[in-house]
């Protein structure tokens, strides 16, 4: 069974409304997802908005950039960096955050989340 079948696609906003190199937070099925539009290629990424180190929902408000070839976001709390593609914390290999599917459908940005939840 493809994982696609489990996904619910949630509308974020129109692509035009997404500021380049800045994030927004989407409430998707009760889950806070941080969505980023990243220069120079206009790549879209979606990761959890929860910073597991600072223990607060803030990652959408971090500064995006690169480390080597890795697109990343730095937590605004204590500045740990997370790989936007994999969710791996670049400053502590024991930590990683969830990532989500993201797509543009007819000019509308959407994130895909599962309806299955596990409590923390």
């Amino acid at each position, binding site marked *: 069974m493809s*994982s696609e079948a*489990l*996904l619910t696609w*949630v*509308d*974020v*906003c129109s692509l035009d*409304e997404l*500021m*380049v*190199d*800045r994030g*927004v*937070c*989407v*409430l*998707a099925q*009760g*889950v*806070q997802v941080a*969505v980023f539009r*990243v*220069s*120079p290629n206009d790549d879209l990424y979606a990761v*959890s908005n*929860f910073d597991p180190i*600072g*223990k*607060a*929902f*803030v990652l959408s*408000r*971090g*500064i*995006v*950039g*690169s*480390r*080597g070839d890795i*697109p*990343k976001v*730095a937590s*605004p*709390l204590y*500045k740990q*960096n997370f790989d936007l593609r994999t*969710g791996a914390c670049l400053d502590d290999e024991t930590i990683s955050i*969830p*990532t*989500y*599917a993201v797509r543009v459908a007819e000019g509308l940005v959407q994130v*895909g*989340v*599962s309806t*299955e*939840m*596990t*409590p*923390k």
Partner: protein
Amino acid sequence: MTVFPEQMTRRTLVVVGNGMVGHKLVETLLERGATAEWDIVTFCEETRMAYDRVGLSSFFSGTSAEELSLVEPGFYENAGLQIHIGDAVVAIDRAKQSVQSAKGKTVAYDALVIATGSYPFVPPVVGHDLPGCFVYRTIDDLEAIRDAADGASSGAVIGGGLLGLEAANALKTLGLETHVVEFAPRLMPVQVDDAGGAVLRRRIEELGVRIHTGMQTSEVLSGSEGRVKGLRFVEGDDLPIDVLVFSAGIRPRDELGLACGLTLGERGGIVVDENCRTSDASIFAIGECALFSGRIYGLVAPGYDMARVVADQILGGSTSFIGSDMSTKLKLMGVDVASFGDAFATTPGSESIVYADSTTSVYKRLVIDTAGQVLGGILVGDATSYQTLVQMMRGDMPTPEEPGSLLAPAGAGGAMSSVGVGALSDSAMICSCNNVTKGVICEAITAGNLTEVSEIKACTKAGTSCGGCVPLITDLLKDELRKTGVEISNALCEHFDYSRQELFDVIRVHRYASFSEVLAHHGRGTGCEICKPATASILASLGNGYILSADQASLQDTNDHFLANMQKDGTYSVVPRVPGGEITPDQLIAIGQVAKDFGLYTKITGGQRIDLFGARVDELPHIWKRLIDAGMESGHAYGKALRTVKSCVGLTWCRYGQQDSTTLAIDLELRYRGLRSPHKLKSAVSGCTRECAEAQSKDFGIIATERGWNLYVCGNGGIKPQHAVLLAEDLDTETLIRFIDRFLMFYIRTADRLERTATWFNNLEGGIDYLRLVVIDDALGLCDELEADMANHVATYECEWKATIADPERMKRFRSFVNSDEIDPSVVMVPERDQVRPATFDEKVNQLAPEAFGIPVVIKR
């Protein structure tokens, strides 16, 4: 506790004198464990223990007597040490091996060290002892000069040597019209030649000091009250003055030696051999009272060498004193002067290479032998190559084939740019004050994994006396770290090879207005949380308008992006500006009402304002709308920018107030509000010397005097408290503001990222003298530009919150969720002391908001 064999008898060493050299001896002995066998008794004639006489002049630029002290607190309480302060030895009984003190103490010795130093020579001209005549030797002397300068308008120094020019600088610092009278035809006749003396003279005259060379004083004239009123010369007209300082050389304090029959030199000085022993084998003499090989060494480094020799002798060693070269490098009134080795080319067959540039007032002379070996030299106006040349003279470094190239103007590199510290041998002396070689420093770096110059100073003491070798230590550190694979780079981050200062210049020169331009032309990758806010700050400092317009918005750290301070739970705090700490009852009520309506926690800050905590992103604009309506504006608590100018009530209310400190504080806060800088800026204005506003702990602080304002800069509270340094005194308000404008813009241009003014100052080569040259004397010719930059800031300032609320586009970002108006369920407050506090993570997950913290299953794309 160490237990010694009972049969061991303890011996007593008496040290006469607690100057720099006497103290160094005791320090060395303690370090080497001498107190296991010896009781060391020191007599200190002055009421202050050893202090830094070399740095004496800094006393007038705000360094306190405590800061000049060389004695660590509690040092003389170490077991085996004893000191008698304010008590001088008056007689030595060589037969009984004992000394007698002025206060009647008798102490028997097994060994005695005379370290009584020297006294200033005062030529026996008529009137030399009038009130208003001083010498320049002790802190007491300086205090007396300072008191006499109060109310005086002009002063002169007799003697244009090294110390005389120091004294002249002091008089100038005290605000007197300053004259230097020198008998010889040039300044610093012992160290520099005629051409060098001429350049030095021109440089010093440019600073407003009047120089009279080839003048012999015949009489000190007295006025009606019996005080000094002028100088009469054998040649020329009288010179009217109010204060006179004699600095015409030193004479050894050898009277104790004379009285007990030790051999003295013809013109004074206690004769010592290569072990620093006098004609009595149990008595040593060191420092400026000792005569070695017909010579008195009037510098601290040879004195320290002697102290180490005697320490070794006392411990049974065999080190001997072989004489020291009189190499000197110093900054006199901001002018570099160095003289080393055979500066006057007296060696037969020696030749000189001379470099002179009259446009920049630089003079350099290098003396070499026929084989091209460096023998000595003179540097005036630019002494950056001093260390390199001295190392070559000592044979620690090879001399290049064309030694003339060593005199070319200093390049952009470090002190050793032309040759590299790698070429130095391990035995090369780096810090001659404290006898620290390259080998010792490199070993300390490797063994202790040191990465900071300050760590090397703490570990080896190198660079802690005169500080002249600090650039060399910095180069050594870089070189050493490079070798071990640690790349020391001042590059901001992986995206730019520039330091913040370089990036600032790049952006300014190219007039870039966006990060993407800067990155495209000078960087790589897509940037990060270091270079983006740094660039945003530079763009803002250079007056690029609203900090959240165009691509600047994506560069800002969350605090600047939401114009509020993020707290640990992701909510923000809000601080309206309260200029000078002055606030109306209506504004207080408005703040209180806003806090009540939004359920915010309120707290008074250290900067005399009110912080409102616990606002969600979506609440920020609503809160600000209310505050702006009540007449308030952004306090920039979120920015690396001016925070507050704290004040006391000053002249208006206070019985002791000298000036209107509150009005000045408000004016300054409004002038510099919103000014983006490498780090936050704090300021304060105190209405009198009681200093209730704590101005001396601020980046720039102002203290009122009877005559105007004293400006202090580069102080800090926080993690490493540091007192601010006095930049200028008794300024009128207009001049004060001009100096602050220049100071702030110079800091903004040249500081590193996140470098507070105190750290910036500590790294500033040339220290306060250099800063004065730039900010007051405009030595770099920058002041017009700096003032224009500040004028532009003042003219274009706008409240960022007003600008944000006025624009619906800008308001869009203030939403918790882009797709929902739901309130962020992860923000939860609990009551505490009649207000709220954020719930802890555990409280939220386990009791208050478990649903908000459900972590979803990860589904890979």
